[in-house]
């Protein structure tokens, strides 16, 4: 039974991987410098030439690219191959301004589909499987990526696209689908519909699901696994870098292996741009080292993340990333410590509070203050003062453990924080008013 799609790569020694990455990076920087005037100007401005990049150790010398660059250079400004060599485009949804369009040569499509094939294989997929793609097809990368990966593995591929849930379930039953690929929210909906139709997981043959393209929690994973009778695997990707399959989960379900032979990850301090040591939380940055048409160098994802290179039970040596924890745009520096609202939110949810909270930062007598207001629900409330005070203290202690600095916790009534219309305001930084 094939456990790996590319065993030589997925289980490669660290030393060999560094060598492979370095070779590809050096060549890629030359390619970009010669063919992308937009990025060359950035390098020139920073005083970096392709000769300065001799190995992955020099990666930090390169300038960053951001979403703003993609918009500014739209549509062709970051293209590194003639259009005659490109075979496809994909595009982001463009909900926050101009769309981002990414270009692919046949080589780019191949390496992307290989990444998806690794993910399918890691989820137990072989040429014996029937793989149902319920991601949307079209400009969105979800459908095309898993579809291509499924072909590579040799699964019988059901190109369903999303929607028409009863038909999804009918095909699932009639053709015996064994692997489902879609967004986690759609998987949960399919699970609910299955039960509404009076069916149980015993009526279908699904054994695994590969779900991504949106944030989801461990709780959601358990719900999906139970309702469909499967093991649910996470998959990560972004159109700018290629699409789903940039990183994928293995049977350990403890983080996603990054296909680092194609995409080198870094974690940086979002404020200073400095590279942070492994294991620290910061902004995730990717460098695509062997894509031809749209080779992003040091692309800032704005996702907050952590990388680990601990030995994985699945045998892969590829570095692992955790689920993104939030957006780097939200970072605050309080008493010299980087604080992300998502860290505080994590503690609140662990302790059974609602994610309705307000963080207030101020500066009094030259010291930063951190006040966190949290809604107290009836289940957590007690008529005994000591119980309520203990709760307040234990929450403050848990937040201190997470952040390294002490907050002042204020318990407030429900609905006092969630009054905002539209996007909730979670942070008020009054220090800015004093500057």
């Amino acid at each position, binding site marked *: 039974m094939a456990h790996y799609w590319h065993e030589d790569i997925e289980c490669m020694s660290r030393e060999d991987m560094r060598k492979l990455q370095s070779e590809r990076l050096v060549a890629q920087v030359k390619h970009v410098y010669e063919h992308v005037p937009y990025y060359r100007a950035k390098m020139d401005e920073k005083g970096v030439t392709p000769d300065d990049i001799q190995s992955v150790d020099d990666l930090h010398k390169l300038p960053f690219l951001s979403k703003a660059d993609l918009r500014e250079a739209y549509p062709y400004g970051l293209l590194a191959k003639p259009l005659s060599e490109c075979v496809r485009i994909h595009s982001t949804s463009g909900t926050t301004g101009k769309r981002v369009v990414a270009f692919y040569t046949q080589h780019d499509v191949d390496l992307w589909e290989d990444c998806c094939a690794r993910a399918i294989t890691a989820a137990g997929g072989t040429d014996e499987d029937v793989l149902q793609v319920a991601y949307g097809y079209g400009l969105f990368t979800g459908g095309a990526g898993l579809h291509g990966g499924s072909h590579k593995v040799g699964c019988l591929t059901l190109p369903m696209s999303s929607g028409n849930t009863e038909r999804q379930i009918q095909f699932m039953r009639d053709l015996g689908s064994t692997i489902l690929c879609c967004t986690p929210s759609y998987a949960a909906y399919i699970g609910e519909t299955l039960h509404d139709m009076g069916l149980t997981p015993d009526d279908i043959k699904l054994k695994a699901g590969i779900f991504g393209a949106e944030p989801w929690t461990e709780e959601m994973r358990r719900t999906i696994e139970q309702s469909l009778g499967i093991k649910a695997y996470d998959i990560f990707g972004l159109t700018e870098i290629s699409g789903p399959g940039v990183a994928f989960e293995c049977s350990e379900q403890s983080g996603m292996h990054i296909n680092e032979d194609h995409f080198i990850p870094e974690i940086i301090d979002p404020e200073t741009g400095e590279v942070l040591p492994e294991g620290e939380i910061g902004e995730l940055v990717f460098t695509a080292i062997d894509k031809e048409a749209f080779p992003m160098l040091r692309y800032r994802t704005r996702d907050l993340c952590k990388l680990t290179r601990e030995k994985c039970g699945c045998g892969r040596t590829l570095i692992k990333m955790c689920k993104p924890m939030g957006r780097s745009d939200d970072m605050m520096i309080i008493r010299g410590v980087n604080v992300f609202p998502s860290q505080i939110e994590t503690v609140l949810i662990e302790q059974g509070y609602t994610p309705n909270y307000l963080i207030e930062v101020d500066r009094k007598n030259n010291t930063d203050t951190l006040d966190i207001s949290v809604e107290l629900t*009836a289940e957590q409330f007690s*008529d*005994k*003062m000591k119980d309520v005070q203990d709760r307040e203290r234990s929450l403050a202690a848990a937040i201190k453990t997470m952040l390294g600095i002490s907050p002042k916790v204020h318990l407030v009534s*429900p609905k006092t924080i969630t009054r905002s219309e539209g996007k909730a305001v979670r942070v008020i930084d009054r220090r800015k008013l004093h500057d």
Partner: protein
Amino acid sequence: MNTIKQFSIFVENRQGKMAELTRLLADAGIDLRTLSLADTRDFGILRIIVNQPEQAEALLRENGWTFQVTPVIGVKVPDRPGGVAEVLEALDAANVNVEYMYAFVNRIPGRADTIFRVDNEEAAFRALTEKGIDTLEADEAYNG
């Protein structure tokens, strides 16, 4: 022998919060029989006994207040020196802990009716009955 429903309500320490809460009850025609407030810097816990517990519960829920319905016992404490001490001694002898207590506004001459929040209502009733100390029926507390 039954417990009395006390409403324990979380009240933020902000101007007007107590007025808002008591106005809500008043406009529904609910009478406060007695009350006690425990407070800290940030919040208070208001404990009340009302004449219409069912209506009060629905009203508080509808209006999104954080509260608990807490079983408490009402004791007809003799209004003379040593009255409260005897009750507490009886409870202590039965290993019943008192979490907090507060008195009714004067109702009947010779009696200082008092609300006790204890950790074991059944043991408390037994201990008081043995000592010949009368307790309040729930109805007496709500409507007496």
